[in-house]
């Protein structure tokens, strides 16, 4: 059957083409197939990256097409790394990154552990839990601004109901001490299901026979959890941390919609700051250097992390 279809394809190939292909090696044909993808990759990823690196050493501003562009060496890089405001945005990003990952991993794993147990309505609960991550970040940001509204917001009402505080006396997105937590809460609400799904995949990949053997050895549930469940789920968990880490390092839409980087610059994450430099102040050269620094940071951290992940897998 297979042979006949190959023969048919061979017969259908025009002689001119067939003659040309006959002269090509397997390697050349492979390159021919891969070439469009490589071209696309070069055009949309590598070329802009090289261009950005080039611009980062200049004073170019995209809104000044007539201005002379000059080479400024490392000036942009030095200015960024010595700018206290940039470090403040880095701190805001670190706070957001660390707390969202901690909360999402803890809650996501706990939910996965519960969902992994067989109970009535299991599928329905899984669907309900997964709903937030199916929404657009802009929509989530928008409706959480309503939930956080001091006068009519459900969140403030719930906090007021539970603690006896007047809901209109605090503003989650307007008060400096609360705003960084406001964005952590929303991101955790939205992306915990994602971590849960990955953990669930990990939990379901553990063969039941391992637990049966542990039962035979009279290992307690607690010991089974720490010596079987956690080590075997760890690679999945680390993968979830990697995904969420990269995503949240470049977090933009959700936070812009929620707080716009405010109050003041309290929730101004690096990506928001970068966008302001690039598309509001139009400091293209400076913003390019900023983007390169962020790229190197994410790439470097991700590479180290992936090595650690591979080691965990090999164990």
């Amino acid at each position, binding site marked *: 059957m297979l042979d006949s279809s190959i023969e048919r394809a061979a017969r259908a190939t025009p002689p001119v083409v067939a003659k040309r292909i006959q002269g090509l090696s397997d390697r050349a044909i492979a390159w021919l197939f891969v070439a469009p993808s490589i071209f696309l990759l070069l055009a949309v990823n590598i070329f802009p990256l090289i261009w950005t690196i080039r611009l980062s050493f200049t004073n170019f501003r995209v*809104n000044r097409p007539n201005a002379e562009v000059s080479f400024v060496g490392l000036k942009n890089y030095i200015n960024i790394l010595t700018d206290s405001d940039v470090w403040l945005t880095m701190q805001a990003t670190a706070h957001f990154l660390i707390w969202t990952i901690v909360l999402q991993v803890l809650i996501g794993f706990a939910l996965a552990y519960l969902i992994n147990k067989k109970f009535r309505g299991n599928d329905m609960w899984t669907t309900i839990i997964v709903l937030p991550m199916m929404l657009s970040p802009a929509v989530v940001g928008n409706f959480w601004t309503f939930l956080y509204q001091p006068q009519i917001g459900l969140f403030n009402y719930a906090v007021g109901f539970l603690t006896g505080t007047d809901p*209109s006396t605090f503003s989650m*997105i307007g008060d*400096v001490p609360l705003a960084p937590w406001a964005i952590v809460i929303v991101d955790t609400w939205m992306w915990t299901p994602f971590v849960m799904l990955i953990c669930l995949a990990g939990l379901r990949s553990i063969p039941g026979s391992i637990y049966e053997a542990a039962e035979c050895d009279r290992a307690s549930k607690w010991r089974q959890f720490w010596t079987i469940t956690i080590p075997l789920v760890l690679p999945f968990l680390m993968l979830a941390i990697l995904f969420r880490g990269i995503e949240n390092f470049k977090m933009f839409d959700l936070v812009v919609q929620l*707080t*716009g*980087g*405010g*109050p*003041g610059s309290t929730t101004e994450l690096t990506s928001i700051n970068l966008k302001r430099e690039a598309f509001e102040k139009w400091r293209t050269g400076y913003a390019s250097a900023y983007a390169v620094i962020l790229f190197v940071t994410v790439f470097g951290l991700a590479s180290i992390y992936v090595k650690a992940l591979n080691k965990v897998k090999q164990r």
Partner: protein
Amino acid sequence: MAVSYLKSALGAGVATAFLTLGATAPAQAEDLTLCWASWDPANALVALSKDFEAKSGHKMSFEFVPWPNFADRMLNELNSGGKLCDLMIGDSQWIGGAAENGQYVKLNDFFGKEGIKMSDFIPATVTGYAEWPKGSPNYWALPAFGDVVGWSYRKDWFSRPELQAEFKQKYGRDLAVPKTFAELKDIAAFFQDREIDGNKVYGAAIYTERGSEGITMGAMDVLYSFGFEYQNPDKPYELEGYVNSDKSVKGLEFYKELYNCCAPPGSSDAYMSENIDAYKSGQVALQMNFAFTWPGIHADPKVGGDKSGYFANPAGPDGVQFAQLGGQGISVVAASDKQDAALEYIKWFAQPDIQAKWWQLGGYSALRAVVEDPGFATSQPYAQTFLDSMAIVKDFWAEPSYASLLQASQKRFHNYVVAGQGTAKEALDGLAADWTEIFDDEGKY
């Protein structure tokens, strides 16, 4: 013979009809795109433009972007040389950059040829929306929409006898439209957390938005009347001692006090639409907002009609009275391939009868023939306030680097007023330093 005569007659008829149509129809009907912000006046312009379509044969399309994203979207379009917009009703601060970078078509020759005189428009709108460099007769736009920050207030609440009595007892004067900012704060504080008709209400909705230009427009609207100056009037770009003068510091401190004492809870990121919502939902007694909001308030079933009044910015401590200019001019985009048709639109729009219709539809005309008409001031309850406010306007920088200048003030003002970080003096010292650095980069020193 008869057939051939008939053919000739028919041919002549067709030719005549063709020539007649050719004489009345425009040389080439174009599909013009006009770009502006997405707001009520834009809808009025769509209605108004139907007349242009009927008369010119051109088809009008519109690209309206909500205010918070308007500058981002449209400046991207201009900077990239995009051809989406043939006509741009751009913000007044864009004029410097758009002129210097060749993004707008210079209109002097066109105005001269068509007999359009800038002296026919409100002087502040010509300076604010059309000129670059400021004060020079170089025109890049036709004043399209006059706008200014002013105040609307709950006239019905002000007129309640029990509130009037209580206010008089507390402050020793009548509860009336404030003449100074100090009086305005007293009124706002009086209404803050008060229960009216079973609802908790608040003092004043003011601008606090962080992302685009909100808090700068609001703070500047107050600072001007306290004595803030952008620069040394005799030495351009000398900022030290002007931006951060003692009077400016007092003005910024006042704005923060007003925010702390009298803004509704949760208004840490409020601009035009948030303030409209706060006012229309009956939450606040006073609302700072651009004049474009007034027709909508007047027509609102809940707070409109006699329930609301309007007043121009009150005076500062020294009796000085200024207001933040809003509004825009209409320009022809240099990258457009349809500049002739776009100019046709501007010619049509500049006509006095079209401008009068523009005002009737809710657009604030900047044509003197319209606003100086004897019936104008009484034509709407807010018309006189509009005239009073337009007479005291000041505007933000319109330099090519305006975006950087604006971002610096947004950050400094929001950090101080909303986030409560540092002092007003530190905020303004920082702002003077930021702006000096930006101008230094621009080679102004």
